């Protein structure tokens, strides 16, 4: 089973036409609204309406949760990282209890998950994955990118993290240990990247702007000045 390169998950392939970069913003929705809803689209509406009719929850709860999902972006995680870089007390509390640390900054957890923050150091590099599915620190990073949910990353991150990181352009020296943490339904991870040199005088806000989603997954470092991609 499993031809190399083909995998279990093909989210987005139909719509991406192979260009995977974020920021190509065609308004796909318009096309789909005009079309007849597809089978799974209909199934979603049917299941939702049936459960609302049976009063298991209200339509407003779905609307509210869509707003919650839209409000969660990697900017929240970046704020947490920047605060940890400038506030030693906060850093310690965050490493002790990731969820409480985030809540201190007003980031609410809308689910029952715990958060463990993993600190990168000159000796240790952390990488997060969910081998079984797509568990991800959604309250602080939003929804995961497709590649995080696809087979190549999930299968390989746990046994050849150095090769995986090289595919993201990240070379970790051999004397740095790589720790891969496998997420579960109840326990999620967030990487606290190393603060890049040359940023000593930067404000917390400017530091936050350097921190990317991928750095908090652990596939790239935080860079300053940013290299041209």
């Amino acid at each position: 089973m499993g031809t190399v390169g083909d995998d279990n998950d093909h989210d987005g392939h139909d719509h991406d036409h192979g260009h995977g970069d974020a920021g190509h913003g065609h308004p796909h929705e318009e096309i789909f609204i005009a079309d007849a809803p597809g089978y799974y689209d209909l199934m979603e509406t049917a299941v939702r309406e049936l459960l609302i009719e049976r009063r298991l929850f209200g339509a407003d709860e779905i609307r509210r949760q869509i707003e919650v999902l839209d409000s969660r972006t990697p900017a929240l995680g970046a704020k947490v990282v920047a605060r940890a870089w400038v506030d030693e007390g906060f850093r310690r509390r965050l490493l002790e209890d990731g969820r409480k640390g985030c809540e201190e900054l007003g980031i609410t957890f809308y689910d029952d998950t715990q958060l463990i923050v993993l600190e990168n150091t000159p000796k240790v590099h952390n990488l997060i994955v969910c081998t079984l599915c797509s568990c991800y620190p959604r309250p602080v990073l939003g929804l995961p990118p497709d590649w995080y949910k696809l087979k190549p990353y999930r299968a390989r991150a746990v046994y050849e993290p150095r090769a995986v990181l090289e595919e993201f352009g990240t070379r970790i020296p051999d004397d740095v240990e790589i720790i891969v943490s496998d997420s579960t339904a109840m326990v999620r991870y967030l990487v606290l990247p190393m603060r890049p040199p040359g940023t000593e005088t930067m404000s917390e806000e400017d530091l936050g702007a350097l921190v990317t989603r991928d750095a908090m997954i652990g596939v790239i470092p935080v860079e300053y000045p940013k290299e041209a991609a």
Partner: protein
Amino acid sequence: MSSELLVKKLPNDIGGDASGKIERVEHELLPWEKRCHALADVLDFHKIINTEEKRRGVEALGSEMIGKLSYYERWIVAFANILFQKGILTPGDLAIKMEELEARHTSETARAHPNA
């Protein structure tokens, strides 16, 4: 492959498998995909279907469906199956509702484009 491996490793259990190069694909969720995600969260809040039940529900689709359906397609089919198993909905309820929705859409489209 020996059949033993099928017993030991269910379809979701792919950590450690050989696989291809990582393609850094991403896409903005379609409106129905986002609604499906919100539905998943609300089902979890109300303890109707929790995250682990959802994961197992997807796994129970079997490797062929897992391979052919997209991420949120797997979720919504898994939700329907779990709701049937829990006796909250029946396959008949769902089929009738889907037909109604399709008819509703067709009549709305016909009204919007009388010459179409």
